[in-house]
């Protein structure tokens, strides 16, 4: 299977992988197979949702982020943090404490991602008015969803709103602010603190945009541990003043479920968790559901509060952020002399940079480019399906009978991988026991197939 040229933040560490196939079984795009006792990821199918990362019992799936010390390559080190980062900490730890510890750790500036919402929410409302032909319009917020639509729902790519998410808008603003202060571009390092793998992939390999102003990405769980430990050690000693204003209630909740849908005019729906999203998109594609103006779709349950790199329980994070949002008053705005200006003071500039290129479909479903060839392969798949047991046991190293049949039709697997077929072939004398053990070893590795030597002694 082709691996594709798409950047993936998710990597499987072969040295740690025990070939348990948990990841293979939960992957919503069937992007994982087991070969030689290790999970193998097919890059053209992976949408970076991180479901595999959640279930791996030995932490063999990693999310590749930048080395923290990389921030010191820059004189001006900006942490671009999403609101859910604050939501990770218990109520008794204040935003001030968190920010002052981050400054101690080496950042020179801290800025919250959702500031970009002040620009974006207006832009989306303008956009939905102008693009009624592509309804329902789908939010471009969650990069795993964009990739999911590209690979699994290619007919819906034009429904994706071609506007940057708050992250990119805030990054452009920061860069402009710092440049305006006379800081040379090469001294500015903007680092995003990510709650998930998909955001990393989106930054390293942006869909619908050529470059990103973000210098690097730091995993949220890593930074949380670093900050929380230091906060605990110093019992809230130092208290630097945050240099960016407090987020509005609307901005604070933007990355939570219904954060967008509640702010857009028209009939809006919010759906979270990738399987729920898939189920819904199937219906949208069939036009079984119509008359919806805007769809907020998020890959994680409870949206970014449920990101794979979060530490705190997602329901508690949501509660905290909602509390923060409720306690917001316009008059709380600090007027610290070093504070960045309000993002709306660059509305015009940011609005001019807010569009993204059309998003291209890259279907993983097609059996062949050529329809006649695809029909031949489909007939082959159907013939193979007649032979398979339809129990989706996964012993063949593929997540379902259907996926094994497709692998075989694509020339990437053999029917002897099926344990049921093996038994029948053995019984008929068409396959030797040694051969079938060899097939098992090619899937599950030597270790798993070689340890049951003394079964009688049990």
């Amino acid at each position: 299977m082709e691996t594709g040229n798409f950047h993936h933040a998710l990597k499987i560490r072969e040295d740690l992988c025990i070939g348990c196939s948990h990841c293979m079984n939960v992957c919503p795009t069937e992007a994982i197979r087991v070969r030689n006792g290790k999970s193998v990821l097919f890059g053209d199918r992976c949408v970076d949702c991180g479901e595999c990362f959640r279930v791996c019992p030995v932490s063999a799936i990693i999310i590749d982020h930048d080395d923290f010390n990389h921030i010191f390559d820059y004189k001006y080190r900006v942490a671009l943090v999403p609101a859910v980062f604050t939501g990770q900490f218990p109520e008794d730890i204040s935003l001030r404490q968190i920010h002052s510890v981050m400054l101690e750790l080496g950042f020179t500036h801290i800025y919250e991602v959702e500031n970009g919402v002040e620009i974006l929410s207006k832009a989306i409302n303008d956009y939905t008015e102008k693009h009624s032909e592509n309804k329902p319009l789908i939010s471009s917020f969650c990069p795993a969803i964009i990739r999911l639509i590209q690979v699994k729902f290619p007919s819906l790519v034009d429904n994706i709103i071609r506007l940057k998410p708050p992250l990119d808008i805030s990054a452009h603003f920061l860069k402009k602010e710092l440049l305006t202060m006379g800081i040379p571009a090469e001294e500015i390092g903007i680092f995003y603190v990510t709650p998930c793998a998909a955001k990393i992939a989106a930054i390293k390999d942006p869909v619908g945009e050529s470059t990103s102003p973000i210098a690097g990405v730091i995993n949220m769980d890593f930074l949380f541990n670093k900050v929380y430990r230091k906060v605990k050690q110093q019992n809230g000693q130092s208290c630097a003043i945050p240099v960016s204003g407090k987020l509005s209630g609307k901005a604070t909740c933007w990355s939570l479920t219904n954060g967008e849908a509640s702010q857009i005019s028209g009939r809006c729906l919010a759906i979270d968790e990738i399987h729920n999203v898939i189920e819904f998109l199937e219906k949208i594609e069939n036009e079984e559901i119509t008359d919806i103006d805007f769809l907020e779709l998020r890959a994680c349950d409870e949206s970014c509060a449920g990101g794979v790199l979060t530490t705190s329980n997602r329901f508690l994070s949501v509660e905290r952020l909602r509390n923060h949002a409720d306690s917001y008053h316009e008059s709380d705005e600090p007027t610290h002399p070093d504070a960045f200006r309000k993002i709306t003071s660059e509305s015009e500039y940011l609005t001019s940079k807010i569009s993204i290129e059309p998003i291209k479909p890259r279907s993983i479903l097609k059996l062949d480019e050529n329809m006649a060839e695809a029909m031949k392969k489909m007939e082959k798949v159907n013939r193979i399906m007649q032979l398979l047991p339809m129990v989706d046991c996964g012993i063949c190293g593929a997540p379902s009978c259907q996926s094994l049949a497709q692998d075989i039709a694509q020339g990437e697997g053999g029917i002897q991988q099926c344990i049921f077929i093996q038994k029948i072939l053995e019984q008929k004398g068409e396959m030797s026991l040694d051969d079938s053990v060899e097939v098992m070893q090619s899937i599950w590795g030597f270790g798993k197939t070689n340890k049951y030597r003394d079964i009688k002694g049990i």
Partner: protein
Amino acid sequence: MMHFEYHVEGGNFTKAGAASSQLKKILKQLNVDPKIIKRIVVALYEAEVNIVAHAFEGDIFIDIDTEKIGIKLVDQGPGIADIELAMQKGYSTASPSVREMGFGAGMGLPNIKNNSDELKITSQVNIGTTVELVTYLNQ
């Protein structure tokens, strides 16, 4: 040339759309242009729901080749007395319970016409209705 068949139960709205979902999956695998897939699926969905909403039961026969997709829906049911009238936008005899489920706007048949290249409907009252539609792939 490939052939598929599906059975449709009258009155079972939970299953309405099953055949169009299956066909969609097949056409995606065959790398048919997404815009054409959309047309076919919308047309089939409406025709399928019409069997569920108005007839007792029916069967769907689908033929696919590299030139065109032909779909034939044959149902046993009340039939349509005046096809021309039924084809008009907004005409519906849907019962209140069907309307409660969100159907019955009288837009199904006009939608089928808009989303297919050829449409032929034949019907015998108290026996059943046959809907045939063709979509060309290379136009």
